[in-house]
């Protein structure tokens, strides 16, 4: 699927938007305006942006708690994302979910889920829904390397093969489960090899910092699944530039390692690619940077001015069935 210039600029816009929203969120967190946990996606922007850019509207997406990037990729406005971080009624989950629970069902984005690995069997069930109804959608289930060591992972992946479900298991390997490196937590470092044990075709993309490579790998995996061959397991190597969450002192990794990865900043790589291939000029890209600055500033203003949910709404969403 070839991209036109405007498509490229849109993807670049999304990646920069994720970066700026996250940076501003970190500031809001430091200022005490965001509570709870805040897991930033900085460094991994090429992954979610690449995935969303090749999925079809009928393809569902579900992910773990590091979910702000994906929320912006699927088109949830920055103001609704930031309002949710601030716990406001105008937030995408009406202030009930916070950082880890953003979703927009209308956009086929089924949310961030905060119990590690628990959303994998749920994703299998969603894929079963499409198989049951005869739809050709694929469920794309994103999770981190850390999630592959919990029982939920194995039950969900096994079931997907037993029932030949249209699901893409997409492991975003950022090399740490909280502060524990992959090789200290997983019996196999090549996470995608775990799919071998379930007879599921699998592969690893070594360079998840390059959005064009992410698009290619995910596109091929989706084609495989859509042709009726059942589940596929794709591992994408990436890196988070920040700690696991705010307040993580990052004692578990060396400065050199972080610096080395920052040289492969996905936004920088994409910027250089667009200019080198003469798809866009640096001026085009600078203009996007400026537009994003304005967009994020307005979003923060909107969120800060938004009302808290009223006490009279406390029980509004406890049950879907109203008496």
């Amino acid at each position, binding site marked *: 699927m070839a991209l036109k210039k405007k498509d490229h600029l849109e993807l670049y816009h999304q990646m920069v938007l994720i970066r700026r929203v996250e940076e501003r969120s970190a500031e809001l967190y430091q200022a005490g305006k965001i509570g709870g946990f805040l897991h930033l996606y900085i460094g991994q922007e090429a992954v979610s942006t690449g995935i969303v850019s090749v999925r079809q509207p009928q393809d569902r997406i579900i992910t773990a708690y590091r979910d702000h990037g994906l929320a912006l990729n699927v088109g949830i406005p920055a103001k609704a994302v930031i309002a949710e971080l601030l716990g406001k009624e105008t937030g995408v989950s009406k202030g009930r979910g916070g950082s880890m629970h953003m979703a927009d069902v209308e956009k086929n984005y089924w949310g961030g889920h905060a*119990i590690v690995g628990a959303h994998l069997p749920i994703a299998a069930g969603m894929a079963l829904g499409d198989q049951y109804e005869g739809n050709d959608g694929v469920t794309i289930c994103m999770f981190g390397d850390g999630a592959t060591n919990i029982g939920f992972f194995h039950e969900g992946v096994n079931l997907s093969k037993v029932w030949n479900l249209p699901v893409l298991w997409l492991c975003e390997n950022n090399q740490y489960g909280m502060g524990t490196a992959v090789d200290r937590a997983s019996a196999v470092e090549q996470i995608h090899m775990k799919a071998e044990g379930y007879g599921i075709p699998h592969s690893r993309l070594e360079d998840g910092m390059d959005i064009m490579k992410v698009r290619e790998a995910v596109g091929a995996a989706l084609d495989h699944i859509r042709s009726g061959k059942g589940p596929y397991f794709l591992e994408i190597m990436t890196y988070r530039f920040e700690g696991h969450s705010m307040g993580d002192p990052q004692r578990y990794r060396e400065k050199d390692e972080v610096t080395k990865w920052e040289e492969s900043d996905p936004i920088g790589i994409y910027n250089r690619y667009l200019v080198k291939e003469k798809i866009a000029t640096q001026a085009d890209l600078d203009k996007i940077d400026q537009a994003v600055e304005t967009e994020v500033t307005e979003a923060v203003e909107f969120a800060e001015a938004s009302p808290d949910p009223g006490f009279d709404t406390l029980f509004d969403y406890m049950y879907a069935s109203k008496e």
Partner: protein
Amino acid sequence: MAIITMRQAISDALWEEMERDPKVFILGEEVGVWGGTYAVTKGFLDHFGEKRVRDTPIAESAIVGAGIGAAMVGLRPVSEIMTINFAFVAMDYIVNEAPKMHTMFGGQMKVPLVIRTAGGGGRQLGATHSQTPDAIFAHFPGLKVVSPGTPEDAKGLLKAAIRDDDPVLFIEHAAMYQVRGEVPEGDYTTPIGVSKVQREGDAVTIVTYCKGLQLSMAAADQLSQEGIEVEIVDLRSLRPLDMGPALASFKKTNRAVIVEEGWPSYGVGAEVATRLYEAAFDYADAPVKRVAQKEVPLPYNAALEQFALPQVADVVAAVKEVL
């Protein structure tokens, strides 16, 4: 009205709902080829086929997790957990995922899932296979917990549960499948969250549910021969909990005995007694009495097991104690 067993009532409810709505399907261990470990789904596979009667691996997290996912995307699954003792293996899904989706995403996601399971002791299965942990599940807002005591209610409540837009844990008693009772002809539902007076009397109020109802009815027959007429209130649903009939009865008799099969500590009886005291303390002519299982993991030895479980004689004695 036909007289049928509890097993038949539950089976009929499932069958009729599957006939009525093509989105209803069942999944669980041995529900298909075997016909259900308690023979509730015997004949279902032949009639409805593998798409709608799905045998699963022995993997409770997958059974409930996949049920949640399928429910989120519009199906109406009935996930069967062979016994409630195995529900602990799927605890995250039952208490932490299904009941929270609707709230946490600001009302975007519905989970119209029924989790059917069987609990209870008395069959010499040892401590891990003989439990009545109903109160644990009823602790969680967002989940509905139903446990019928008669075939009529079993059929009506299961149909209501399947048509309900929220997750419902439907607890049967493994030793009650042969219990017989009158069941109305035709399609009917029994509302979830509505208690019922199953026997009228003026001496003492017995508040109970599920197997406790059977014990209480037998005790009432014995007491009646001595001229003591008890009133029996069947809770039927533990959450939402309808205290209306129990309170009205307590205000009439001024005495109450609560009968449950689970352990008394932090249990259903503790909850009901507190609510009676909170709402009607001035009406009490005697302390509220609890009849429950002795606080020990159930032994295998038949005599010891029966000694630990509540018996009809215990109910009779408790009623006489508060008179």
